[in-house]
Each structure stands twice: as C-alpha cells, then as structure tokens.
C-alpha cells in the first residue's frame, strides 16, 4: 500500500518524525558541493544562532540558580513551602492530563485511521484546534463556563463544587492545551502500520481487547511514548492558560511555572531561577528521551514499510 506511506510524510506538519524513507544521497555529489568559505561561514553562523538563542540562555539559568552556591540553591528549592507545593501540584496535574490525552489520543487515532466515516477530516481539524488557540483564550473559555459569573457558576456554587481557581480547572486547561499531541503522533504511525495484522488477529479469533493489547499496542508503543513525552513537556511548562484559571493562590493553585513568575515579581531572583533550573533540567531530560525515541519510531515505521515494499 504505497499510498499510505506517502501519507506519512505528507501528513500535517510538525509530526516531528524524520521522513520514513530518508535516502542519504546528499554527500559526495559534486553538484551539491558548496565552496569551503561558504560552508564554513554558514556553519559558523548556524552555531552562533544556536549559541546565542539557546545555549547561552540555558547556561545562564543554571549559573544564576547556583550563583550563591549549592547550599543556597537547595534552600531556595526546598525551604519555601509555597515552592514545595508548586512542585507537588505540577507533578499532580501533569500526569492526570497526560493520562487523559493518552486515552483520547489512542481512541481518536483508532477511529480516524481504521474507519472511514463522514466528517473524518473535520475531526482531524478539531483535534488540531487547540494549537491555534492562545493559551490565555483557552483559560478564559473555561472561566466563562466554570467561573463565579460563568454559565455553570451558580449551579456549581449551589452544589459546593469548586472548579475555577482550584485543581479541576488546572487539570482541564492543561488537558486542553496539550490535547493534540498524542493523537497527532499516533495518527501517522497507525496509518503507516496499516491494519493487516489487526485484521489477521480478529480473523484468527482474538477478541477486540486481545487484539488491542497484543497487536496494536506493541506496534505503536514508541510512537505513543513519543507523543506522551511531548505532551508531558508542554503540560509541565504551560503558563498562560493556567495563569488565567488558577487565581494565583500561593501554596494552593500555583504550579511551577506560575511560581517562577510570582518569585520574579517579588524580586526573589535566586528563588525564581532555582525553580526555573528544575524546569530546565526536565526540558533537557525530555530532549534526551526524545532523541532516543525518534530512533525507535523511525525503526517502527521502517519495519512497517519494509514488508509492504517487498510485496
């Protein structure tokens, strides 16, 4: 099914996956050689861009966090109860949002790649929509529903349910902002793998559940993990949407990025950079896992492509 392979490379945009068939024939062809002076000046410029825009800021985060020594750093991170609570809160909100988006992502990718039904393209567009909505607007939408003056506000207050300016709203907006990640990664992967093995499993008498766990999940596991990693990174760093619905109650609804901002506003730069350094470390770990997974997903897609190419 060569058309499906094509879809992988054509599908949407930041599928972050390198092209499935990346034939490296770019080296050693005379017509593609640039003169040495051009080569070196372009490489130099590229290094300068990455250095100035990315490396210097990252180094600066750690430098400023540790400026007064590791003892002070540790105290900044663990000595303040509000900061401790913000770390706890982030590690509570993020897994819940990611888990919800995994269930959704798998369901959506299954429905979209395995069946044809009217409105399928519209559904794909809807999934991408959160990327086009400013986080601040996202936060506002949920405030309009669940806030005091919101549409459900009076009813919620009557029943003593707190959503806005509390944990549920934090989870809701974080889930909204990161909604597309898992689905977007899975759709091209599942499209490329095709449904032959699943159909075989069913015709050999497996029930749906067995097919899902023994055929589908092993096939998509790296792609799924890749989506989870991206989703996780974005969820951890989400600021605008959370800012709007949190109400900034220190020690209650401040996540780590909000804590960074609050400490910054209080002119507590060492404290702010200490929390920032923790977030930066998590981002660097994310990058590392991402590289490993990119290789694995590439393999997954290649394996999926090979038997098809031979038929």
């Amino acid at each position, binding site marked *: 099914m060569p058309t499906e392979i094509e879809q992988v*490379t054509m599908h949407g*945009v*930041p599928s972050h996956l*390198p092209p499935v068939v*990346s*034939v490296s024939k770019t*080296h050693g*062809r*005379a*017509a*593609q050689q640039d*003169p040495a002076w051009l080569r070196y000046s372009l490489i130099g410029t*590229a290094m300068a*861009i*990455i250095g100035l*825009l*990315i490396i*210097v*800021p990252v180094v*600066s*985060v750690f430098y400023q966090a540790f400026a007064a020594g590791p003892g002070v750093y540790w105290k900044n991170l663990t000595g303040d109860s509000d900061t401790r609570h913000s770390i706890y809160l982030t590690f509570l909100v993020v897994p819940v949002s990611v888990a*919800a988006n995994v269930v*959704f992502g798998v369901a959506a990718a*299954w*429905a979209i790649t*395995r*069946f*044809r*039904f009217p409105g399928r393209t519209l*559904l794909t567009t*809807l999934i991408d929509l959160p*990327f*086009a*909505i400013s*986080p601040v*607007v996202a936060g*506002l*939408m949920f405030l*309009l*529903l669940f806030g005091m003056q919101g*549409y459900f506000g009076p009813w919620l207050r009557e029943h003593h349910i707190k959503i806005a300016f509390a944990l549920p709203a934090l989870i*809701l907006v974080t889930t909204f902002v990161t909604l597309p990640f898992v689905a977007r990664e899975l759709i091209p992967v599942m499209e490329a793998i095709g449904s032959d093995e699943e159909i075989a499993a*069913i015709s050999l008498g497996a*029930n749906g559940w067995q097919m899902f766990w023994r055929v589908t999940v092993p096939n998509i596991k790296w792609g799924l993990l890749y989506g989870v990693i991206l989703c996780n*990174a974005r969820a951890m*760093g989400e*600021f*605008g949407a959370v*800012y*709007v619905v949190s109400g900034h109650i220190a020690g209650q609804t401040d996540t780590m*990025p*909000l804590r960074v*901002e609050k400490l*910054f506003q209080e002119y507590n730069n060492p404290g702010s*950079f200490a929390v920032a350094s923790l977030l*930066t470390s998590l*981002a660097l770990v994310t*990058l590392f896992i*991402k*590289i490993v997974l990119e290789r694995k997903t590439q393999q997954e897609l290649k394996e999926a492509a090979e038997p098809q190419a031979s038929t």
Partner: protein
Amino acid sequence: MMNTRRILPGMRISLSITLFYLSILVLIPLIALFTKASSLTGEQLVKAVWTERARAAYLLTFGAAAIAAAIDTVLGLLLAWVLVRYEFPFKRVFDSLIDLPFALPTAVAGLVYSSLYVKNGWLGQFLVPLGIQGAYSRLAIVLVLTFVGLPFVVRTVQPVLESLDAELEEASACLGATRWQTFTMVLLPALYPALITGFALTFARAIGEYGSVVFVSGNMPFKTEIAPVLIVSRLEEFAYAEATAIAVVLLVASFAMLGVINLLERRTQAANSSAH
C-alpha cells in the same frame, strides 16, 4: 483502503470517546466564548474591541509575531541547510538543541531572556551601550518570540531538503547555472511550501504566546502590551465580556490567517506537482 468497519472492532466506542472528549474540552468552551461575546450589543462590542489601547495591542501582537516569524524563516532555512548538507563536530547535539524551545517552559524562557538583555546582563552589557534595548521593549518581544518559534521552520524544511534529489542540482549545474542560480531557481521553489508552513506555524504560535512575553515586555499599555496581556488585565478588572470580545478578535484573526496560509500552501503545492 478497504472498508474495515465490519471486520475491526471498536468503531463505536473509539468514536464515542473522541466525540465526547472533543465536545467537553473544545466545542462547549468555544460555544461559551462566542455566546458570551454575542451577549454584547454591537455598540458595546465595538467599544470593547476597538479602543485605542486595544488597537495598539493588536498591532503589536500581529506585528511582532510577523517579524519574529520572518526572522525564524530565514534562520530556520539556514539551520536546516547546514544540518542537512554539511558535516561538523557535535552536529547531532546542535540538531537536538534546536528542539529546546519546544521543551522549555515559556516562563523559563521569559525569565532568562529578561535577565540576559538588561543593562548588566550577560548580553545587555554589550548591547545596551550601543542603544539596543533587548529587555522591556518591543525588541524584547520579538526576540523572545523568535526563540519560542525557532524549531518550526527548521523541522518543516529539514525533511524536504533531505528528500530532494541530487539529480535536480546536477541537471541545473550541467545546464550552466551557477550555484546561486541553482539555489534561488531550483532549490528555493521546491522549499516554498515547507517555508510557508513553517512561517504559518511560527506566526500562529507567536500570536497566542503569553508566558514568555509577559516577563520580557514590561507590559506598558500602548507601548509593549500585547493582546493576550490585555485580555488578562481586563479579566483582572472582572470585565469578562470585554475580555471575551478581545479574545474573539484574536481567535478569528488567527483562524483567518491560518486559513489563508493554508490556501496559499495548497496552491503552491498544486503548482509544484503540476510542474513535475
């Protein structure tokens, strides 16, 4: 693809989960937004979205986003070219570092950018004496948006550049074109769709960006206040309807922009494929 509806299980449940989830998280909130905005009379609406302060904020938001996206398009093309075509030490490290803006929380980016470009910051100590204010200015907004959007163009152009046939360039060279002519007349047209997509993604991201800008801009009304900041300050005054009206303007503008660029992209793609 054959119709698998009768063979594979789970259509009803997976579609139900998908539709339920999207309704709760996307459709109902969007409806709430537009309903709230339509509760204003036409006059109130205009008064909310067309104040002098709001106009200044739109101009800055879209202007800074467009400039940052343009810068990122140029830088992204250069980075993609260098990464695909040349070999140099630590290439893999540089390649993976390009994704950092995706992984780094925007608040951290804002925090560190604001500290780098102030008078006694690492970079500000050289730039401020030259009169370049890279913090608490409009330039600061463009700078941080350039950082946030950097990976988009690189990651859209890179795979296209990798998949280009060497024969194209060989044919062009055989026909007597200089390297520069080959680049502008053969390679660049093939990269247009990817460049446009990258630009659009960077632009869309930059329009909505809040977390990083709020740290670096200083948020002065009329001068360095972007539209999302204006929405938040309206919210803090409990002016929900006004905030919603501005949000709708922002939303409609970015949807329209994306639609136009989508169309443009499809047209270039169609032109390209018919040329082959």
